[in-house]
């Protein structure tokens, strides 16, 4: 019993943990107590646990009750001087009938004269429900094949994929219509040291970029992101463009299809923010020295030129 209880708790906690993950990213585990839904989870867990305990208690009560009833029946039988024959439970009756069991005393009628090293065989009927399971599965198989391959009612893998993609595109279009995305792209992006955005950018960086540029941006497979030298330009616009479009011949992945424009902006801000942090074991500088252009609007033209020359 205890193992069953334990395992059930395992299942419940495992799956609810996942559901929570799904709702709130991975933030729940970082600060479970501070999560706005924490009281709700707590109450849910409590309700589940209580319900579970109640079920266990109820089952035990029922068992005890049964013992009393049987005892009483036995006493009554003894008083009347007849042999006590237990009433079969509803379950036993049901079980016997769906399996078409022969009563034990009739077993000798169906005992075959087989004897293999002492093993005898009965000639019981096939359990009726089993027989229908066999027939049913054969019929199901026929219907399945007809629906997929004769009438083409159900889609095969390729069509299923097409439908899935179309549905996703429609949903995305609908979502974007009601939540117009902030227009973020490399032509208009400006850097600001916004703490909140940089923090979000850090999360994106750690999961996607640290593998090549190292956790602190010191570079390894990819270049150092904290120094003043840039292969493809160091302005926020250029950084954004490189992340979005990638530099395939150098192994830089185009992240445009994978990260949302907002995420690319966040991580670009973060990269900008770690400039000059001098992490340990930096990779040697690569590319050209980039100095931040004076913050004047008139400079955009010049900047565009540097983009070209440095790529």
């Amino acid at each position, binding site marked *: 019993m205890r193992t069953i209880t334990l395992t059930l708790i395992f299942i419940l906690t*495992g799956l609810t943990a996942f559901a929570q993950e799904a709702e709130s990213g991975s933030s729940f585990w970082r600060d479970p107590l501070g999560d706005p839904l924490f009281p709700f989870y707590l109450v849910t867990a409590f309700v589940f646990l209580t319900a579970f305990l109640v079920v266990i208690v109820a089952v035990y009560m029922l068992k005890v009750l049964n013992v009393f009833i049987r005892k009483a029946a036995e006493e009554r039988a003894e008083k009347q001087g007849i042999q006590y024959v237990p009433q079969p439970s509803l379950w036993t009756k049901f079980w016997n009938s769906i399996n078409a069991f022969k009563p034990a005393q009739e077993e000798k009628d169906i005992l075959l004269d087989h004897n293999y*090293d002492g093993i005898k065989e009965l000639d*019981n009927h096939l359990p009726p429900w089993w027989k229908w399971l066999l027939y049913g599965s054969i019929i199901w198989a026929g219907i*399945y094949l007809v629906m997929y391959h004769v009438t083409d009612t159900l889609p095969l893998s390729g069509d299923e994929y097409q439908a899935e993609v179309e549905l*996703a595109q429609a949903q995305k279009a609908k979502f974007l219509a009601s939540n117009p995305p902030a227009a973020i792209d490399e032509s208009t992006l400006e850097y600001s040291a916004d703490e909140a955005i940089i923090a979000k950018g850090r999360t994106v960086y750690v999961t996607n970029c640290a593998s090549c540029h190292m956790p602190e941006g010191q570079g390894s497979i990819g270049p150092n992101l904290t120094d003043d030298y840039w292969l493809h330009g160091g302005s926020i616009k250029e950084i954004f463009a490189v992340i979005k479009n990638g530099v395939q011949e150098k192994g830089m992945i185009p992240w445009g299809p994978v990260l949302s424009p907002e995420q690319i902006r966040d991580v670009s801000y973060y990269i900008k923010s770690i400039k000059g942090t001098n992490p340990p074991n930096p990779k040697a500088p690569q590319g050209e020295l980039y100095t931040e252009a004076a913050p004047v609007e008139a400079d955009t033209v010049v900047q565009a030129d540097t983009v070209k020359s440095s790529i």
Partner: protein
Amino acid sequence: MELEKFSYDNKIVRAFIIATVIFGLVGMLVGLTAAIQLFYPVFNFDLQYTTFGRIRPLHTNAIIFAFVGNAMFAGVYYSMQRLLKTRMFSDALSWINFWGWQLIIVAAAITLPLGLTTSKEYAELEWPIDIAIAVIWVVFGINMIGTILKRRERHMYVAIWFYIATFVTVAVLHIVNSFEMPVNLFKSYSWYAGVQDALVQWWYGHNAVAFFLTTPYLGLMYYFLPKAANRPVYSYRLSIVHFWSLIFLYIWAGPHHLLYSTLPDWAQSLGTVFSIMLIAPSWGGMLNGLFTLRGAWDRVREEPVLKFMVVAVTAYGMATLEGPLLSLKNVNAIAHFTDWIVAHVHVGGLGWNGFLIFGILYWMVPRMWGTPLYSKNLANVHFWIGTLGIIFYALPMYISGVTQSLMWKEFNAEGFLVYKNFLETTVQILPMHVLRAIGGGLYLTGTIIMTYNLIKTAYAGSFIADEPAEAAPLAKDVKVSGGWHHVLESKPIMFTVLSLIAILIGGIIEMVPTFLIKSNVPTIASVKPYTPLELHGRDIYIREGCVSCHSQLVRPFRSEVERYDPLGGEYSKSGEYIYDHPFLWGSKRTGPDLHRLGGKYSDSWHYNHMLAPDAVSTGSIMPAYPWLFEQSIDLSQTSLKIKALRTIGVPYEEGYEAIANEELKIQARRISENLQLEGIEVAPETEIVAMIAYLQRLGKDIKASKTASNQ
């Protein structure tokens, strides 16, 4: 009629029992090691011989062929003599069977850690060992059929039917799946390529489960369970119906391992429907087992042998319901490639095979040594600790399988994958891997307790080497009457032939069209054979068992195309694999799919990642492969490889083998120069260079076709 005196050969049974126990312990220990590596990768001691990719096949082979295989021979040799009232046909053949089988196991235990593998699951052993297996299996078959022919019991009991089906089918499966083209004594290429190789392999793989782990064990159940319970078998009719339906239907179900793959849709559908039709025949075995215990349940409570058997039969029922459900496309879409499948096979392996073996051993050993079991209490402890082990193994794996699968598939409202980095989903399930190892540890502990108990029992008794028996010989020219099946039971050759026909039909109908009808594998013009360097790299990929953790099959799901080919937007097509001898689709994604890997990362990324995966991807559980940076590829093999592949249909031009090494060197130098730009010095003939060449080739051809059609 006068009774003849003879004796049963217990010595051969004892030999197989000892082998069972030893290899059981070894196989489980290797399994536990592999399980620990899946959350603590340095548990391979940084040795190439003990990395996960090499010991995973060692574990599966040790458990299936050494532990379960030896136990099968022990049980078959014990029960067959008694059911047929005769000694085995030939003691010499029995011992050839025994020593031959142990030699094969030793050969496997040496070659697999060395990386000598065909990479086809449960058929990893290289061609000379394959031949040895075929020979020894036939020896076993001759011995069995010979014994049946000289029987003193007119009719064959249901256990014998299952043994016959086992012999015939395993022979067919093993021979057909092992067609391979040798390169040298230790290396061969599968005769089949790509999707056809996959079909043959999973026809084999699935039916290895059916006819090596299931039918012989059903036979053993039909002997040992009624003996232990001292009850008549519940239904003779059920035996007949479920035996024939089981062996006929099972053979068709292999393609359910290839749902949503590039296997033609009609073959996938056959895999699904035949799996569903298998529920009832499989359950027929379970019901006949459990219903035989009707009226003996009070004894189940006291007798550990029966307890083990009840759990075994129940686990069989659960696994054979779960299997068909996993064959439904919508369930398979979630479960395939995840830990769910690992849980499923272990419910079957630990529950059905393991527990039935334990029950049988606890039953046979006291009888063969003429003494009661040393300790019933210890057997009970074994039972509970083993059961707990199964629960601790299976439940975490179910949770981790579903969790990871849902994470792979989750999109946010903007249409991007929520968990873009595969590693996030791996890290999430590591606690479950820890629990699973604890479960495996418990199970192994139980087995150690059993070993002690059995040894103590044997020492307490005295071994009965030749157990005396007597029976009347069969009268000649007796007309057998009764039902048609009853008559058939007295005609072993006819019975064997009918079983053979029953198991051939499904395989033929699925394979012949896939091989002969061109439209089943649409070709892609831009797909070219591997270059010599890539070929060497691919062989290293095979040697290291990368396929144990990485699939090469992007299924037609939006979540997979977005994850693995966000730029190209192509799921895998059968035409991409036509030069893949063998196919490397894999069956489990502990790491990400690699079929679209080429060009995704730089050469230096691969270099660093193979050297220290954890340094590149923090938290990765992939082991490091430092030896690839020290060892060099063997250029003398290049021309042999090219010639072998040309023989089996890869279109390398005549004479190409002469210039292959030149081309290889040019490509290797290009990669090493490329790495030099990043400050990495590496000799061009180093294995890592070949590996990088292969990894960078994956999925490139289909991209080339796109570029071509766009222009």
